[in-house]
């Protein structure tokens, strides 16, 4: 399971498409427990990513880095520094290893450092952590991803805007968890794993 420039570009292209397709759905989810912009934020960010990757970065490290930079500078919401940090950590590690499991482990750690969220806080972290663990055991499947995304529905938010709603946040999917679900679905579908 090695990340290459080629499969990475395919992965991001698919992810950008999914985000563009699900833009309104993501914003709808966010309007229930947040400010209703997650879809727009991510679509703006992934558009910038696509444009940056279209300039043909020389290697995987540069590709990861321009992805991070585009997300950090264009998303505009919490998801920007969060996804941005995740990709930046992958970029940094990619000069040493391109093992997917190790890269995602570093990314998840960066995400947690940036946002301070733990498992169960009803954030994108609740998708990244199980994905990281399943990758380690080579057991990541589409069902596992879906399960992680859906697990956020019954959680009470402890981080992000939704946390102000307390128990009122229960019963809604976390938008960042859903967009992270798309990220990993794309990863599976574009053959990064096998």
């Amino acid at each position: 399971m090695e990340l290459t420039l080629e499969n990475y570009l395919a992965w991001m292209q698919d992810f950008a498409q999914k985000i563009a397709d699900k833009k309104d759905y993501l914003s709808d989810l966010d309007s229930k427990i947040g400010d209703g912009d997650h879809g727009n934020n991510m679509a703006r960010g992934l558009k910038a990513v696509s444009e940056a990757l279209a300039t043909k970065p020389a290697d995987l490290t540069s590709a990861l880095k321009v992805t991070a930079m585009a997300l950090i500078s264009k998303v505009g919401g919490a998801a920007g520094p969060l996804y941005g940090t995740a990709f930046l950590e992958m970029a940094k590690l990619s000069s040493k290893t391109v093992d997917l499991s190790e890269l995602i482990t570093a990314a998840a750690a960066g995400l947690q450092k940036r946002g301070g969220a733990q498992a169960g806080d009803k954030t994108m972290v609740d998708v990244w952590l199980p994905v990281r663990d399943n990758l380690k055991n080579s057991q990541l499947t589409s069902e596992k991803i879906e399960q992680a995304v859906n697990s956020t529905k019954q959680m009470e938010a402890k981080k992000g805007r939704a946390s102000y709603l307390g128990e009122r946040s229960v019963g809604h999917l976390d938008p960042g968890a859903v967009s992270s679900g798309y990220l990993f679905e794309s990863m599976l579908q574009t053959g990064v794993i096998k």
Partner: protein
Amino acid sequence: MSYGILIVSHVPEIAAGVPKLLQQVATDVSITAAGGTDEQEIGTSLEKINQAIAANQADELLAFYDLGSARMNLEMAAEMTTKKIHLYDTALVESSYVAASLLQAGVALAAIEKQLEPLKIKGNN
């Protein structure tokens, strides 16, 4: 003066307004602000924060923000600059006002931070 104040808000108007409140009681303190996304929408922009840091005449900044995602961008900006950024999880308007008053009066950072402590109301979201 070696300490400045940095305001980061999700809203351009708030970022424009808070320095006006502060500057009134802190004429000699450099106060800069970043608010909204690059498109002037509600959100924060790392680029704007970087610019506000650069534009500040001080090289050690007391930074205040409104909501959590502004905090994350502030942290990223802090990692990118050579200026020293002190980030406070305190009430945006009220605590930056207190900090400005005390900086103007020449109070030392440790004493200012002590006075900011009871104004800490976030950092967990």
